[in-house]
């Protein structure tokens, strides 16, 4: 009798623990029969995130108009979002619809079959309503997996007030850039902002220099594995980046600063130049910005004697939403996906979060962020767009590229070694 009691107690202890874990599940899906609940994951968690307000508005509108399909947004901020979706993909627990990045980032997801191919859903004219070529980054093995909602371009932000106050001319080419850098240094001002701790912000400077040296076609060809990275143009781009670094072009201690930290100094009006994505425009033109109305957005300075024109940009359509192949409501999820991306494209442009990717013109031009409106005009004549390399290359290669740029900036390798190591990716 005593022994039996002991066993019963032990079993009870074990099962109460086990029961704690699964009790929640049953209650969640109870009203699913009438209402289809779809979960959307995003990375816009704080009010400062440019797409936070637009997506909240769009989802609220949808939920009010579609009582049978209810959307729920779950947001996770920053780099941890990447970890979260990778973990979820590995466990096959992706939500119905989720924000992700195209090209190399989502390729493993597509290959493992965790994503829903959208081809059959897009023949209703959707393909013609998005910008030409904007689906390219979301296409793997001829299957389209995502829809675009924002276009970004690498943008050279210039604090004109600082330039004027110090009597320095805004650089139009690389030589003038170098002169401006030295002039600012002499006055004790940090010339260029960059967050080297996050690696990709400094990579932006190399990638745009490579674009300026070699032109869009050659860059794309090299990324695809055609042209060798040991081509003189890539060596020269590396040399120019190192030359800038050795001229102390980048803000003091930039290798230890995150993007947010370095951007804050530019936004406080203490640094004259900053090259990063067009998404920065929103914060710079917000009411709390110290340099509102003093900034000019333009393409990176040209390099004389090369074929690259000012109509070639670093950038692309890379942010997207994709649908999990696991979702029980495939048709509804795709319907929501279309609604969501088209409206985000419009709303996002309206509030200055990014450039539009859907061909809809119901936008009040006067209310648009002037920097973005300016960029839309400048990019209308774009002849070539090259994605930032870490987007195009895959995980390991992207990581290698970013680290090689960091080594260039800290003079750990020569431009020739850089080119050779880069070419090792293609071999």
């Amino acid at each position: 009798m005593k022994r039996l009691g002991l066993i019963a107690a032990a079993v009870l202890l074990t099962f109460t623990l086990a029961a704690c874990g699964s009790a929640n599940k049953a209650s969640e899906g109870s009203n699913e029969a009438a209402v289809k609940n779809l979960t959307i994951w995003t990375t816009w968690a704080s009010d400062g995130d440019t797409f936070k307000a637009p997506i909240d508005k769009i989802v609220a509108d949808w939920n009010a108009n579609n009582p049978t399909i209810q959307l729920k947004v779950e947001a996770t901020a920053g780099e941890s979002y990447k970890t979260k979706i990778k973990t979820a993909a590995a466990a096959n627990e992706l939500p119905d619809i989720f924000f992700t990045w195209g090209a190399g980032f989502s390729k493993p997801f597509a290959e493992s079959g965790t994503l829903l191919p959208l081809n059959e859903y897009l023949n209703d004219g959707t393909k013609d309503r998005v910008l030409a070529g904007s689906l390219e980054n979301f296409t793997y093995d001829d299957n389209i997996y995502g829809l675009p909602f924002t276009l970004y371009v690498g943008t050279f932000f210039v604090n004109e007030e600082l330039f004027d106050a110090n009597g320095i001319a805004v650089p139009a080419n690389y030589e003038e850039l170098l002169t401006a850098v030295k002039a600012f240094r002499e006055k004790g001002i940090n010339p260029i902002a960059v967050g080297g701790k996050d690696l990709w912000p400094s990579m932006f400077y190399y990638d745009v220099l490579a674009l300026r040296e070699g032109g869009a076609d050659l860059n794309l060809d090299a990324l695809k594995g055609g042209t060798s990275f040991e081509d003189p143009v890539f060596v020269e781009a590396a040399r120019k980046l190192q030359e800038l670094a050795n001229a102390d072009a980048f803000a003091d201690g930039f290798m230890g600063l995150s993007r947010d930290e370095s951007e804050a100094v530019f936004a406080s009006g203490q640094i004259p130049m900053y090259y990063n994505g067009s998404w920065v425009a929103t914060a710079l033109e917000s009411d709390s910005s110290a340099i509102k109305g003093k900034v000019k957005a333009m393409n990176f300075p040209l390099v004389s004697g090369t074929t690259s024109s000012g109509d070639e940009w670093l950038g692309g359509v890379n942010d997207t939403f994709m649908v999990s192949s696991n979702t029980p409501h495939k048709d509804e999820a795709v319907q929501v996906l279309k609604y969501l991306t088209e409206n985000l494209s419009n709303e996002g442009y309206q509030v200055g979060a990014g450039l539009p990717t859907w061909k809809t013109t119901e936008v009040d031009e006067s209310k648009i962020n002037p920097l973005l409106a300016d960029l839309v005009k400048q990019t209308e004549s774009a002849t070539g767009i090259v994605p930032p390399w870490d987007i195009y290359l895959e995980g390991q290669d992207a990581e290698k590229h970013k680290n090689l740029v960091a080594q260039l900036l800290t003079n750990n390798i020569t431009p020739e070694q850089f080119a050779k190591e880069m070419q090792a990716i293609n071999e």
Partner: protein
Amino acid sequence: MRDKKAIMIFVLPAFIVYCLIVLLPILISTYYSLLDWNGISQGTFIGIQNYIKLFTGDPIFIKSLWNSILLAVLSVFIQLPISLILALVLASKVKGSRFYRTVYFIPVVMSTVVIGQLWMKIYHPSFGLLNDVLGSLGLDAWKREWLGSESTALGAAFVPIVWQYIGYHMLLMFASAKSIPDDIYEAARIDGATGLKSALHITIPLIKPMLQVSVIFAVIGSLKTFDFIYVLTNGGPVHASEVPSTWMFNNIFNQYLYGYGSAMAIMIILECLLFTVIIQKMFKTEQITY
């Protein structure tokens, strides 16, 4: 204590839970470490190739190992002596010892990310506290890009790590010192041992078991440290401050090398076990009962 079955049965629930959340994941990771796997699609079995690569084809991992061992040495020889001195002083009934105890313990209860953010502000190259203080003291030549330069990043990241846990070890040692019965001190006083003498010959030998625990915690904590490095430098610049766990994280989540990263995780576990055994052998203390 005689009913062995009862003991077994009552230990069983906790044992099952322990197996499920500690041993099982380690076993699964060991299996993963034998795969060439991106974490999402199907992996292929490659034997111990990942382990061979760790020690022959990955200078960054070797460097990160040395960095963590350096951190362990710093913890044992800088952090613990400070903790010990504080504990001894506080245990000798100084005025306001409760107040100081709380003050020294505050960093322990704070989140490491918060402390990391705090120290990032202190180290900021343009308007950080440290550079400002150096500047106002006229020591401009000593100013550094603390977290941004390869020569200082590791050292700069170590300071808050060592600093945070001083209070923790102090409390362990303090509690242990307090549990030494007063009559031992009284006897010592009669024999003429006071102050430093009684600390050296009575307190320290009697709290030796706790010192052993502290050393193990400090060494293991250093070997598997992650949070501070991740927040402060993310292993940079150019891997100068990389430790095994940040490099493991980078491999798994940034480079999609799930199998290779798992091999690193297993190596970290083995390394921690090895050091625990070594330290226990080194101390070989006898049980003290009062």
